[in-house]
């Protein structure tokens, strides 16, 4: 079984797609990967807080009524509401801008959402299994070990040691689903705790594994910034998800 990788820098982060298939050089495969990457580019255009004219930027400036926004944006807004409810407020789409003022910023959810969406496109590739890594969050699928018809081996996802990023602390084997890790190891305190209104300074990391990368990522962030008691909520409501704390 052969393997091939594609890497792009989108949304300010590296997006790596690895495909295992008998013929990794087929034009159909390359076309499918490009189509999946196009979905990530589309998400960047709609949701980036760095692009002046993205729908999210226009919503933030009050120029666009969320109710009139692109259906994809509305879909994300709904998901943000749901995430806020489920995590009892530990996840938020209201983040401080550079001036400290809170504003609509669904970035924390969009990454997983866009990666899941791209993965759905990759899942359509016949006889191929895929692994998409978006800046450290991973979604895999298509292996024969699960519903797909691709190669049988699961993907082995290494979980970075938050205290020494050149080391792998754990390995998760996965046929289908997402692995998301939240922590400060890569870029310092950047995870916002809506309960205290501050960026969380703690060390270590929280990894969540489950069917959807978007929800794995929402929970990884919520459990990293939220109170210890949120772990009980997680165990109760996040069916099919598990947590690895390092």
């Amino acid at each position, binding site marked *: *079984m*052969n*393997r*091939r*990788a*594609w*890497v792009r*820098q989108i949304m*300010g*982060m*590296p997006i*790596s797609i*690895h495909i295992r298939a008998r013929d990794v050089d087929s034009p159909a495969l390359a076309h499918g990967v490009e189509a999946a990457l196009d979905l990530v580019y589309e998400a960047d255009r709609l949701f980036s807080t760095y692009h002046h004219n993205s729908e999210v930027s226009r919503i933030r400036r009050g120029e666009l009524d969320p109710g009139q926004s692109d259906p994809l944006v509305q879909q994300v807004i709904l998901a943000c509401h749901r995430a806020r409810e489920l995590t009892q407020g530990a996840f938020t789409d209201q983040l401080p801008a550079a001036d400290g003022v809170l504003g609509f910023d669904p970035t924390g959810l969009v990454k997983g959402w866009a990666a899941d969406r791209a993965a759905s496109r990759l899942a359509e590739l016949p006889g191929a299994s895929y*692994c998409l*890594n978006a*800046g*450290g*969050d*991973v979604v*895999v699928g298509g292996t024969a070990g699960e519903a797909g018809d691709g190669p049988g081996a699961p*993907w*082995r*996802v*290494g*979980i*970075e040691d*938050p205290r*020494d*990023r*050149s*080391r*792998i602390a754990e*390995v*998760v084997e996965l046929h289908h689903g997402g*692995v*998301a*890790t*939240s*922590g*400060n*190891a*890569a*870029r310092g305190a*950047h995870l916002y705790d809506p309960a205290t209104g501050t960026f969380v300074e703690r060390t270590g*990391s929280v*990894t969540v594994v489950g069917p959807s990368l978007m929800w794995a990522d929402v929970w990884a962030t919520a459990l990293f910034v939220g109170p210890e008691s949120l772990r009980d909520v997680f165990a109760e409501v996040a069916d099919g998800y598990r947590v690895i704390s390092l």
Partner: protein
Amino acid sequence: MRRIVFAVMSTITAVVLLFSYHTSTNSAFVASSPAGQLPASPGSASPPRSSNKSGSATSKPGASGTYTGNAADTRWGPVQVRITVQGGKITASGAVQYPQNNGRDAQINGFALPVLNQEVLQQQSASIDTVSGATVTSDGYLQSLQSAIDQVHL
């Protein structure tokens, strides 16, 4: 196969240029490189030439052999790297040529090359396909383990 060589070369060039890791300063790697075969100084290094390979490599997947990359010019002088591939995976890497002119060079060699070597070997010992970790930005990508894994399969 040349793609692997060039890819690894570019990784290592990037590492040498950009690395600012805080990790181990042990010099086991440099000590174990074939110092006797190193050019006397970077100044005497031969200009970039084609890669040499030995081994039975015929295709990317499952390839085996030892590969020596072209010398890459960096700000501090030429860097040339050799990797050993078994079954399509890097099992060892080492520099056959690197800048040694001054303290800054020594620092680069002391940090970047050993760290890269450890990373590659640790990645292989765990046989992982990808890395999940705290969010990596585009700026940090070249220093990431994921970047090294990607380069092998590009």
